[in-house]
Every structure is written in C-alpha cells, then in structure tokens.
C-alpha cells in the first residue's frame, strides 16, 4: 500500500493582481512548487465575480513542510492582509511521494 507522508497545504485565496507576487514569495520562502486556479465568490470585500480583469480571484495551493508553511503565512499576514483581498489557511494533509514537497 502506498505510504502517505504528512505535509502542510497552504491555501491562499487572493485577488489576481498579486498572484505573481505571492507565488514568487512562496518559492523564495522555501516552497518547491504551487498550483493556481481561478475562483469566484464573496467575502468581506464584496462579491468577486471573476468576470473581468479587476474582479478575478485565484486560489494558490502550496504543499510544503510545516516551517515553510509558517513562514509563508507569516509573510502573507505581514505584507498583504492590510490592503489586499486575501484569505489564508493551512491544512495538514497526507501526500504520496513526500520527498517532492
């Protein structure tokens, strides 16, 4: 049976304008990769319909070790929460081929 390795999954839901900043920051802080998809929804900053450029929202997922996850969310909290629409949370997950993350 395939072995699951415990890792942390950082999820950032943010306005698309800062997507490249967030992914670059995550890689610089030790992430080995990330996945991005477009989403839409509603939150404290109103409806983000995703219909046109300024209303686009992305969900960035980063699988990593716990210290990297902590560094990423600390960095996001310090630099982005004040002015940007960002939601951040961390899940503990089991991954296959843990050495990749």
């Amino acid at each position, binding site marked *: 049976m395939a072995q699951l390795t415990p890792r942390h999954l950082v999820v950032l839901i943010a*306005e698309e304008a*800062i997507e490249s900043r967030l992914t670059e920051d995550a890689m610089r802080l030790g992430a080995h990769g990330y996945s991005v998809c477009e989403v839409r929804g509603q939150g404290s900053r109103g409806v983000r319909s995703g*219909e*046109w450029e300024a*209303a686009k929202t992305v969900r960035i997922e980063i699988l990593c070790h716990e210290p990297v996850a902590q560094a990423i969310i600390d960095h996001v909290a310090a630099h982005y929460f004040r002015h940007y629409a960002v939601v951040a949370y961390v899940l503990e997950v089991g991954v296959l081929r843990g050495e990749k993350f």
Partner: protein
Amino acid sequence: MTIDPIPLFFLLGFFARLARSDLKIPGQLYEALSLFLLLAIGLKGGMELAKVPLGVIAPKAAITLALGVTIPLVAFPILFFLGRLPRADAASIAGHYGSVSAVTFAVALDFLRDRQMAFEAYAPLFLVLLEIPGIMVGILLARLGGGLGTIRWGELLHEVFLGKSVVLLVGGLLIGWLAHAKMASLEPFYFVGFKGALTLFLLEMGLVAAGQISSLKTSGPFLAAFAIVMPLISSLLGIGAAALMELSAGGALLLATLAASASYIAAPAAMRIAIPEANPALSICAALVITFPFNLLIGIPLYHYVITVLWK
C-alpha cells in the same frame, strides 16, 4: 431619428444583470474578444501610420503625451481638495482618468464610420500614447506625499509597459506598420468582423457594469458627480489639443473621447500594485459604472455636436 445599435448592446447587458438574468458571457470569450479588438485597433492604426511621415506624427505625439499628463493633474486637485478624498484614492482615481478606455475609443471609431466622417486613421497611436502617462502621474501623485522610495519600479514598469492591452496595441501597431502592404488578406477577419465583436464585448461590459452598481453606495455623491463632470472637462482639454494638432473634426472627436474616457483594465491592475492602500472599488465605480456608460450614451454624441459647431 435613427438609433445606433452599439449602445443598445451595452444597455441589454446592463438591464439583464439588473433584472438578475442568468445571462453570462464565458470568461474565455471575454478574453478572446478583448484580444481581438485591441489587436484590430492596433493593426489598423499601424497600417495608416505607415502612410504618414514621421515629421507629421512627432509633434502630434508630443501634444498627446502632454494631454495624458495634464488630465490627472487637473483631476487630482478636484478629488483631493474639493472631494477631500485621501491622497491615495485621489491619486489612483486621477490616474484612471488620465489613462484611457480602448472600448470607448472603438465606439467612437464606429460612430465616425457610421456617419462617414473623415478622421486621421492613425488615431490608434493616440490611444497607445495615452494609456501610460496618466497611470504614471497618478502613482507619482500618490507617492509625493511620502513613500517615493517604496515604489518597486521594476515590477511597476513591467506591469505598465507589458500589460496585455499595451502589448496588443503596440504589437498590432508595429505589425500593421511593418506589413502594411500585405494586410489585405487579414481584412475580412480583423476589420469586417470588428463591429460584431464590439457588440458582444459591450454586452459583456453592460453585465459587468451593472454587477458593480452596488459600489455606488460606498462611493458617495461627490464621486458620482466627478465621474460625469471630469469627462466633460477632459473632453474640452482633448478638443483643445486636437485644435493645436490641427486634426480634422473626426480626429478631434477621437481625441476628445479618449481624453474623456477612463481606464478600467490597465489602470486598475497597475494601481493595485503601485498604490495598494487606494480603494479599488472607488475608481472602478467612477470609471466603469458611471463614466463609461456616460461617454457611450451621452458623451460621444455631445462631443460630436460641440466639435461640429467649433470646426465649421
């Protein structure tokens, strides 16, 4: 009286969204239409640019750039001193009004073609030249109160000069200019289909603008009034610049419309990065929910009327 079909598509989208219809334009189609329109505008401008000597263009280009710098410098004090908006918001909104809306320009182009009015066919060059200066002046106005050193210039210049709309417009201009002699086979795709694509895009803009209408509640009456008065002031500046450039009445209408329009694609993206503390809902409400429909429905016919009187 005949009614132009173009604004009606915008109104269809607008009222469909207000009535909570499930009508939606797929995101990929929106992207494709915007790419098509920007490229077509650039290509046509480039083809015409090739026919005009550089000596004729250069002074006109310089006046256009000066117009792009002037508009936010006029808008900012109105917003900052009269409207008492925070510096960041005033500067960001001023930048949006300094920059331009390519779709508004496309509607004015169609307005002229419909009336068979002559115009300087290289006018898309004005559109390209007006995209950027307003945004840069807006950012500088925000940072002059302190924090000039905090601007990440590399990232900002990348966003401004390599944003989708600038790349497509400048790229189209260059392709049209370089290959102007061999563009005939592309005409059916880019130019015959232009108006149809514009109608679909305006349908989508109607949906989007109506979707943002709740932002009117937070923006307040001052900003709503600004979004109507500012295009009137800017159009006068545009008409003045056009007179200085000795443009035809058609060319003057295009420049006045460009001056009156406000960016809602390039500027919001740049401002989010450069002035994060500015509330994006304010500038989008003013530029997209009020100024864009105003120009479409009232502004362009009004500027046309004024110019027809003045150019007699």
